[in-house]
């Protein structure tokens, strides 16, 4: 731990660098979450209420239903990869923030 005594969390939580970190996370996480939930929930809605449309052939014998389901796997892999990349930037911000707290305490 950076500080052997109990840190003053209220003061820490008011640091501009912390707010920048929170804002940066929010900018990615909120839209990404809305996107994947909508994308995923569209699957049961389409399957359940537009089955004839989804049964139409997509590529060869593969129909729209299977293609849409398969695209969910790709969506998950790609979004996870984006998250891992973006999170590296947060790590750098977090590192700088914690270093500045440590230097103040020293």
């Amino acid at each position, binding site marked *: *731990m*950076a500080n052997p005594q109990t*840190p003053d*969390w*209220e003061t*820490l*939580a008011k640091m501009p660098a*912390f707010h920048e*970190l*929170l804002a940066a*996370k929010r900018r990615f*996480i909120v839209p*990404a*979450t809305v996107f*994947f*939930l909508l994308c*995923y*929930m569209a*699957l*049961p*809605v389409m*399957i*359940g*209420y537009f*089955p004839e449309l*989804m*049964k139409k052939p997509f590529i*060869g*014998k*593969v*129909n729209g*239903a*299977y293609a849409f*389901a*398969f695209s*969910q*796997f790709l*969506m*998950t*892999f790609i*979004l*996870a990869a984006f*998250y*891992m990349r973006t*999170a590296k930037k947060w*790590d750098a911000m*977090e590192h700088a*923030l*914690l270093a500045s*707290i440590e230097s103040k305490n020293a």
Partner: protein
Amino acid sequence: MLSAIQFTPALGMFLAFVALTLVITWFSARKATGSASYFAAGRSIKGWQNGLAVAGDYMSAASFLGISGMIAFKGYDGFMYSVGFLVAYLTVLLLVAEPLRNAGKYTMADLLAYRMSPRPVRAMASLSTLMVSVIYMIAQMVGAGGIIKELIHVEFAPAVIGVGALMLVYVVFGGMIATTWVQIIKAVLLMGGAFALSWLVLGKHDYSMTKFFAAVAHADYAGTTVEKNLLDPGMKFGAAVNPYGPLDFISLALGLVLGTAGLPHILVRFYTVPDAKTARVSVAWAIGVIGVFYILTTFFGFGAATVLPIESILTPEGKENTNMVAPILAKALGGELFFAFISAVAFATILAVVAGLTMSASTSFAHDFYSNVIHHGKENRPGQEIRVARITAFFVGAISIAIAIAMGPTANAAFLVGLAFAVAASANLPVILFSIFWRRFNTGGAVAGLATGLASAVILIILSPNGVFGKTGAIFPLENPGIVSIPLGFLGAWLGTILTKKDPESEAKFAELNFRAQTGLGSEKAGSGH
């Protein structure tokens, strides 16, 4: 009974797996000293290892046996479980894994108790953890009983009891380190089995994707039934089969995508790694492994319907033998030895997942309920918490065994797991998210959220077509409660908060929790904490 056991290759391979894992357990038991070691593997598991262990915990009997069976009989609609099980990891990755690791110690309740009055919150969280774990465990036990019956020709009930007894050895003696390694070995074996099985299925179709999908689109169970297109949706959730089908499907999907992030045995895994960054890496690994596995269910699920005669996958009474499709497929394509391998893998899977579940349930009871609720967070004697966890493991195991035997071997494991997800999504996820992200959230809200989510999910299951009133008398028309119980869980947590008075302490602590959860300052370190 014992005289009926024959020494088959399957039994041999299974015994080899048990021997290997028991050696690991023995080594872990010698290394494990203190609570952080027993409950959280000393927080020293590497990212890729934990990723495999998460995947191992997750790719349960339900996934392997239940889903392949469901796809073989219901086609596309069964495949929907595969999709939901994977996408759910985005919820874990984006919203839960890192804050949880930063702010907790051993259980999900640590995060909740951080800001709230610890005793009521921990008591409720512990109850909900036990509930989810027991339902999930019953699903595994049901699968286990069926497979052992095929494997060594032991009846369902003694088979289930045998699994329970073995699982207790891992948990009681080895704790989290042993459980983690059992998961890792099992995940590797399962992936190997899934690849091999898929490859053999593709071989039946000249290794051509085009021919494979053409066969699935005209599936006739090796010429024993009329053709049907298994790629078409609707055989289970279609409006033609059941007027509530589409709504039930949406309800299931919600439960799956939101439930994983509330599964106690998955959440405890993130305490076994040194920090939040490693927790993140382990989720990424898990997504890779789990994603590939569920894509492969395409081959050994749909594929079964193209190569297996229908009678071979029905029970003698003519019921769908859903949990046995994958092993029977292995026997048909790869012969006796491959059947032995797949059965041993399936069995190992069950054993490992049951051990993981028991571990998380008993950790929660010992750490949350016994230490913190009854003894106000003070351990009377060193090692007391571990002792209570070991005793709890016995009881949790015994209860699950009893219910599994009562339900019998034909209950579909994937369906039962779907219910566990719905309970986790309704009770656990709302309070986890509100604790991390909502300043005003207080004790009243946490208790109300857990209670409404848990109660509504359980009551709706009881009133559902699978509940006490059966298909005709069901009061609640859906099999999956999620679409009602998840919003109720959130609503309960929200109402409980705004109807009770503001809690300045909880709000003050929010600054601390928020800072710690988002930066990792002061989080539990590797090798620390007793």
